[in-house]
């Protein structure tokens, strides 16, 4: 939890420290704003909102329901994401939180927000593109790059090499 707490504060700092506070009415948009402070555990510069995995938010008098879209079917980070959302919203709004996953619509990499894309590039991970031809080096912006392997250190990333600045880099898979 302490690690998740650190990530949460990083995300909060990036969002400008906007804080709902305990007296804020529990509305759909207040819940979404709070979700924007929950980091993805594998890519903590992205919030779960930046990543585009929030499918549905339902606020009921006795509970908050959040439905999320797994980025990959076997994503091992899902349990951590679910627990972090539950902890964060329960603490903020003081009511029980339920998190469900669904494949009702598939998560696709074009759901990552513009802010999320910029944040990925800032840590040297190229955001997803429409195809390898559109791939740019996150360090020097060169198009002179080659895919070394479609498979990288997590299910959602591939390995590339930039021939211009001679840097290996990772890119989010386009799915």
């Amino acid at each position, binding site marked *: 939890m302490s690690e998740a707490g650190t990530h949460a504060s990083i995300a909060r700092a990036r969002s400008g420290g906007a804080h709902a506070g305990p007296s804020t009415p529990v509305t759909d948009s207040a819940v979404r704003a709070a979700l924007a402070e929950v980091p993805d555990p594998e890519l903590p510069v992205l919030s779960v909102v930046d990543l585009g995995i929030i499918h549905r938010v339902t606020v009921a008098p006795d509970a908050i*329901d959040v*439905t999320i879209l797994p980025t990959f*079917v076997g994503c091992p980070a899902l349990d951590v994401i679910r627990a972090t959302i539950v902890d964060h919203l329960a603490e903020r709004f003081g009511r029980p939180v339920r998190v469900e996953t669904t*494949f009702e619509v*598939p998560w696709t990499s074009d759901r990552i927000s513009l802010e999320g894309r910029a944040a990925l590039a800032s840590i040297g991970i190229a955001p997803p593109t429409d195809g390898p031809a559109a791939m740019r080096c996150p360090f020097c912006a060169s198009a002179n790059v080659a895919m*070394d392997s479609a*498979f990288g250190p997590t299910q959602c990333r591939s390995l590339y090499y930039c021939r211009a600045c001679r840097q290996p880099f990772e890119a989010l*898979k386009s799915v």
Partner: protein
Amino acid sequence: MSRSAAAVPPAPTAVAGLEALLRSMADDEFVIGFSDSEWTGIAPLLEEDIAMSSLAQDELGHAAALYGLLAELTDTDADALAYDREPGDYQHARLLDHGRGDWAMTIARRYLYETADAVRLEALVGGSWAPLADLVGKLVREERYHQMHIGSWLERLATAEGEPRDRLRAALGTLGPDAGTVFTPLPGEPALVADGILARPMAELEADWRARITSVFDRLRLPQPPPTRDPERGRTDHGDAFTWLHGEFTIVRRSDPGATW
């Protein structure tokens, strides 16, 4: 609101076929995922070690999701389905029963499986039972990377003269007679087709798959998979290599029943 198996019951006529379909697909993904995870740490190249581990992780994730649907339908749990059955109760295709073998064997097996799985998944896209159709919509997007990767390896081994090509041809010779077992007809299959869960019968899917790989095998001068040997037993009688693998993947469960992490 969720389109889970419990919330969206399938047509009663389709239940038996659906259970057989989910079990066969989950067992296929689980067994190939586990077999390929044996390369973690010892694959021929570091990048390939990562790739094969990532592929294996994808397949085990797919198996978990499919076992999850089956568990909801049959009122059990996914871990019990994955780990608590006797070796004889698994219904994966016999194509996946040949042991890890060398790298050529791994590439040949995965190429045959991925191309067959792609045809099967296409026949499930947009199917009438939403929980499976939703999941398949997602699986197809991930499997595309598997096909791309393994296709390039087949090409690489087939076009390298000498040992790589010889080993690939030998592996295809061993696996070929079992390659079509992915399309072993399922109990209850006519109802699955009638209810629109599966677009077409397995026999038609197999013909499509053979037509699709023929041009690749011809171009690369590789031996075409012959008709399936012993098609009645395509998903049974798994043999010693699987008994060994079963011992490996159940060892934690057997040493500490109910263990979680």
